[in-house]
């Protein structure tokens, strides 16, 4: 699913669902990671929290996610990973959710607070309906766990540092060490995310052997700043992120 890919995170429904589709289409992305707003996003920093709260208070509903994916699919083949907290999926029912997501055109599910130990049923339902999985790994994930994550994932999403999402000034040494270690252990492609916001970060990580780099909060900041007019900014920014010159 990824090779030297920029993975662009977009929060669904921020500022509204129509604009979310436009933003997804304007990004120069190898993969779009669409974030489902949640009332209590414990793994996210302030920027993404604000986007989620704003979407929810503007009346965003879970079913709007599938509408967004369907609209996007009418115009794009770009791979799409749906990123969610577990409770919305659990609440509507794993099977209902996955069936809807598959039929809308989602390629893979990444559930932030669902480690594989708790994911037997979820993974089984995904397999049954042809949905792929992406699991998180962290710099402190033990080798035995990393092997299982690798086994279950379409690509492994390596969290670059300790903490939550949000822009950081540089890529931590921890990220490079974790990437080096994961490359030895994992067979699947490796994406690195959390805190990455600059072209030099992206290029550095590609050079170090990452197959994908995730940019999230930096995109959300653009939407925060330019609102409904952020399309061009997102287009420009994502193009610049991966240009070699």
């Amino acid at each position, binding site marked *: 699913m990824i090779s030297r890919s920029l993975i662009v995170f977009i929060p669904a429904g921020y500022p509204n669902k129509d604009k979310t589709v436009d933003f997804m289409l304007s990004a120069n992305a190898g993969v779009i990671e669409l974030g489902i707003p949640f009332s209590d996003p414990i793994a996210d920093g302030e920027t993404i929290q604000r986007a989620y709260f704003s979407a929810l208070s503007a009346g965003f509903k879970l079913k709007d996610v599938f509408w967004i994916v369907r609209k996007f699919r009418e115009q794009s083949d770009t791979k799409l990973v749906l990123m969610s907290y577990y409770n919305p999926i659990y609440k509507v029912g794993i099977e209902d959710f996955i069936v809807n997501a598959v039929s809308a055109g989602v390629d893979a599910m990444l559930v932030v607070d669902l480690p594989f130990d708790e994911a037997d049923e979820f993974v089984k339902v995904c397999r049954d309906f042809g949905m792929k999985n992406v699991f998180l790994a962290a710099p402190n994930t033990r080798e035995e766990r990393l092997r299982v994550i690798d086994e279950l994932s379409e690509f492994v999403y390596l969290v670059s540092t*300790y*903490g939550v999402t949000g822009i950081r000034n540089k890529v931590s040494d921890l990220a490079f060490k974790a990437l080096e270690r994961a490359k030895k252990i994992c067979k699947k492609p490796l994406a690195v995310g959390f805190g990455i916001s600059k072209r030099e970060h992206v290029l550095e990580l590609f050079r170090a052997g990452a197959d994908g780099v995730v940019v999230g909060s930096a995109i959300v900041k653009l939407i925060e700043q330019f609102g409904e007019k952020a399309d061009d900014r997102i287009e420009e920014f994502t193009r610049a992120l991966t240009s070699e010159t």
Partner: protein
Amino acid sequence: MRFGEFGGRYVPEILIPALEELERAYSELKDDEDFRKELDYYLKNYAGRPTPLYFAKNLSKELGMKVYLKREDLLHGGAHKINNTLAQALLAKFMGKERIIAETGAGQHGVATAMASALLGLKCRIYMGALDYERQKMNVFRMKILGAEVVPVESGSRTLKDAINEALRDWAESFETTHYLIGSVVGPHPFPTIVRDFQSVIGIETKKQILESEGRLPDAIVACVGGGSNAMGIFYPFLKDRVRLIGVEAGGEGIETGRHSASLTAGSKGIFHGMLSYFLQDEDGMIADTHSIAAGLDYPGVGPEHAHLKDSKRVEYTAVTDKEALNAFLKLSKLEGIIPALESAHALAYLERDETLKGSVAIVNLSGRGDKDLGIVMEVLK
């Protein structure tokens, strides 16, 4: 790891090693003789255990039953919370952690955490919803005097659940040096077990005391349920006995108004704060805002062991309203000269509800004292 189907460890991968470390340390330490000795020493000489089981004779007469009060309100800090914070702070020391973080609603757990941290020389940061920070100024000041840093949390509903969110975010970054001292029987495994074990001292003492004074076990034990730690603490040693156990949730302005915190009574199964349990949530699985006159009960979830005890029907759960709790608060103060915490007043209020208790022996866990609530009660009575 689970209580029936409930509990579990639903956290981002980054927190798994921290929870594994905690589980290892706890299983090493819990039966260690030196640890037990040290904890017992502090519980006795610092916190004030054992607490009395007091026969409330005036209230008994009024209600037509024998009412005993387990006096956790007499503990240092004014609530049962110190049982857990002393024990977990010792556990943190054993793990070599130098810093403690915790969430607090009313401020009672924050105060108890700040006390244990000061006592054991640990750095301490308390997260508190910005709304609670405003409502509970005196407890904020208490925590600061005790040397803790208190951080108001501005996100979400700005209450207890948001404080837990923020503590989890901190912990994902700081777990190498920091212990998250969670304040109730909630959160990912092994927290619900650890906190229940450390609070069980309440029930163990109660059993001995009631046998001494009545020569038999009680007919019923009643406790309020926020996250559920004081209730688990007093219920746990009685689970296998023929004793009615009753958990009382915060009914707020009435279940039908939607303004309450009764997750067992009116919630549905969900997965949040690391656990599968009952939560107040909407049809999309978004966690609901809650209300209670008792800040310590103002939480949209409940410990997973309570969820199991509800489904297996071992414990009865019900809810009383703000108004009923307030009446019980005033009644105990007048009749016995004891001002209960508004949380504990929920358990007291239940006694008036249940006709079948007449003529029986009932124990109420008086989880805390009411000094902290005087400001709120003054407002309501105006």
